[in-house]
């Protein structure tokens, strides 16, 4: 019997693997001959609501993965810089991002920060914007600054030919994304409850397609997937439940995700798509709310605890992950970091300390988006999953 969920994932895979972004170019072309615009954004987090409200298509750009041969990109980056920026430059110089009318570089790390300036020099005719998300998390300080920064960005988008981002329009876009946030969490909840029905490589493809598709279409797609995947009758295996953390920016190759699953792990939570799940609560905006302020408030109060955001005084770092482990009934954590990624790698000792305090098993490795050999990782993950199994049998 054919599985409609698998067919949906095939569609997603085709969209994600199309590095030329033809679906974006198609979206831009209107039947009356006019063109709409699309704006790219880099990991980790950009409020897509603002781009949507300007009438543009927000397109997440995370690199070309292992499908892209790097020819020019390496001439711009030393060997000790992560793989993501060279892949982005390669795509840019190779015309694969031509469908994008501009690019937003959020303040994620020094690499993306500097890449924003490189972009200005390499593509002087394209609009480029650096979005300084606040690290001071006080509403009066960072909150106000950020709301203002978003307003500036909205004005820029207008200048680029976008619609005026009025409070009404932005509120409307926030509502659209609230719906999307809700469905996204439903899909993740289904995986948590029944990982045998939602393999992570499928979920990953589904979410990655959401970086490219219009949000409304993606919400529909997820609803369809949810309906069909929840009807699956796959048998649950005796696999340990694990969380994958640290892979929030440069993405691991698909083969790596499949390898972890094949090594006998049920991934029940991950941060591969952290940017799309950055705001952990729906905004539930009302007509009285000033929408830029609401986006800023949500950022300050309900952000995911990513490595790229300052961890304020209070509970030690890693406690949120410990909570997640409890909530997901996970039995272990796999820490996966891109090579040379300071944010992810410098977080690791703090996170492992928190896991150790709670006696939560963990293992860790590094990867690059074009890692081609998974044998070592397969063995490591296999040993890890065996040890969790033995440990739980023994206890």
């Amino acid at each position, binding site marked *: 019997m054919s599985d409609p969920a698998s067919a949906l994932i095939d569609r997603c895979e085709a969209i994600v693997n199309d590095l030329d972004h033809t679906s974006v170019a198609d979206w831009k072309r209107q039947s009356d001959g006019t063109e709409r615009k699309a704006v790219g954004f880099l990991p980790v987090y950009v409020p897509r609501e603002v781009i949507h409200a300007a009438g543009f298509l927000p397109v997440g750009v995370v690199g070309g993965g292992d499908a892209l041969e790097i020819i020019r990109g390496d001439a*711009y980056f*030393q*060997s000790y810089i992560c793989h993501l920026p060279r892949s982005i430059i390669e795509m840019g110089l190779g015309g694969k991002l031509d469908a994008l009318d501009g690019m937003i570089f959020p303040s994620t790390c020094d*690499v993306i920060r500097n890449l924003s300036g490189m972009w200005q020099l390499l593509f002087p005719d394209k609009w480029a914007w650096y979005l300084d998300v606040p690290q001071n998390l006080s509403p009066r300080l*960072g909150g106000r600054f950020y709301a203002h920064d978003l307003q500036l960005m909205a004005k820029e988008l207008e200048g680029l030919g976008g619609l005026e981002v009025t409070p009404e329009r932005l509120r409307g876009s926030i509502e659209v994304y609230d719906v999307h946030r809700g469905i996204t969490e439903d899909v993740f909840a289904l995986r948590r409850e029944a990982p045998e029905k939602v393999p992570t490589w499928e979920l990953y493809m589904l979410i990655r397609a959401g970086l490219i598709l219009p949000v409304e279409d993606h919400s529909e797609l997820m609803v369809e997937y949810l309906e069909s995947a929840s009807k699956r009758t796959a048998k649950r295996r005796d696999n340990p439940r694990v969380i994958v953390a640290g892979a929030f920016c440069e993405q691991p190759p698909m083969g790596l995700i499949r390898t972890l699953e094949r090594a006998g792990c049920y991934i029940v939570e991950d941060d591969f798509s952290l940017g799309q799940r950055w705001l952990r609560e729906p905004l539930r905006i009302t007509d009285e709310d000033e929408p830029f302020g609401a986006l800023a408030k949500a950022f300050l109060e309900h952000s995911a605890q990513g490595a790229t955001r300052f961890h304020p005084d209070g509970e030690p770092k890693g406690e949120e992950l410990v909570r997640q482990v409890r909530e997901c009934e996970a039995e272990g954590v796999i820490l996966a970091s891109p090579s040379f990624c300071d944010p992810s790698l410098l977080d690791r000792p703090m996170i492992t300390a928190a896991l150790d305090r709670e006696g939560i098993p963990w293992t860790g490795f590094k990867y690059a988006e074009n890692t081609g050999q998974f044998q070592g990782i397969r063995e490591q993950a296999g040993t890890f999953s065996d040890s969790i199994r033995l440990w739980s049998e023994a206890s």
Partner: protein
Amino acid sequence: MKDRSMELQKELISGHYDRLSRANDEGKPVVYTFVPGNLTELMLSFDALPVLPEINALQSGMRKKSGGFITAAEKAGHSEDVCSYVKCDLGMMEQGNIGPTGKALPKPDLLLLSYTGCFTFMKWFELLREKYDCPVAMLHVPYQSRGEITDDMREYVVKQLREEVIPKLEQVSGKKYDEDRLKELLGRSAQAEDDLVWVLESAKHKPSPIDGYFGGVYYIGPLFTAFRGTPEAVEYYRTLRSEVEQRIADGLGPITPEGELKDERYRIVVEGTPNWTHFREFWKMFADERAVAVASTYTKVGGLYDTGFRHDPTRPLESLAEYCLGCYTNLSLPARISLIEKYVNEYEAGGFLINSVKSCNSFSAGQLLILREIEKRTGVPGAFIESDLVDPRYFSPANIKNRLESYFQMIEQRRSGRPKSIANAGLEASP
């Protein structure tokens, strides 16, 4: 051979470490903070003593201790891939936090986190906070991505100073914010800044009386960070300036570890951080070729004064904000390139060298494009070498020496009008 200024700065620095070793007994608040965007005058106005972990790390590098510290941090779970300053500092802490003078450094009462120009600073203090269990004051300094400091950016930083940084300094020091005291300190900073800029710009003379990179980081610049605003800093820079004036009058070149550099042959602009584990050896490679670094960007990390900025006692917090926003590490890549281009032209440099360090994404990401652009815009040949700040495993003396020798030969060939065999050498020879 040492000038009076060099002795003076040694005395001041060792005095500072002595004060630090007594800080706990004397009840002086200790504030850890970073070099770029440092709020020295503000801290001093509360009688707080600054500790700069980067300076400790570089001192450990120079004293050949960093390798051991880094290994200790890696054993404790830190990755090979990350910034070695952080690992050096954490390793030092694990082993008793013994400072450069052999005495233990006091624990921080406050971690003042201005992460101007580097996100890794944020991680660094998150890590330190776990060990010291003390508060962090976060000062978010917006990035000059559009090549300018806007009113909003300035206001945001001023507000954070007022509402976040000052209250925390009041809390740890038990003192009220005293704006008059701050103004006094800022006035003295501006005086010293005038002399500092004069000294740095003296390298426009031929021969240059100073080395604007090695000398710049060794004895011209360092004092600025912990001492800006003090009468001692004013005195130090005045002394230094008069010595340099004398050197110009005598037609002398810079002092190097090998003595005075005679017959300046190459004038080079350097971008990037130095290597500290082989600092002397690296400098000697230049001195042996009679190459002088006439200007550098690293000396502008702690403040960019030669484009006109001065701390201003009439606008105390605003000018502190502008200082933070204006540090070299907070400039966009296009602005960095324009500054380097200006240095190459104004200092009449015949070459441009990048020392790219593995540790530092803030500096290194984009440097190959900088190299390309500078060559294109100025026509001077560029070179690209790689090392690290304090991780001795990444300094390969033979390779670097070879690279430098062939680079200087190439400049020579160009000068004599012979065919350029390795045009664009830097980029082609880079990894």
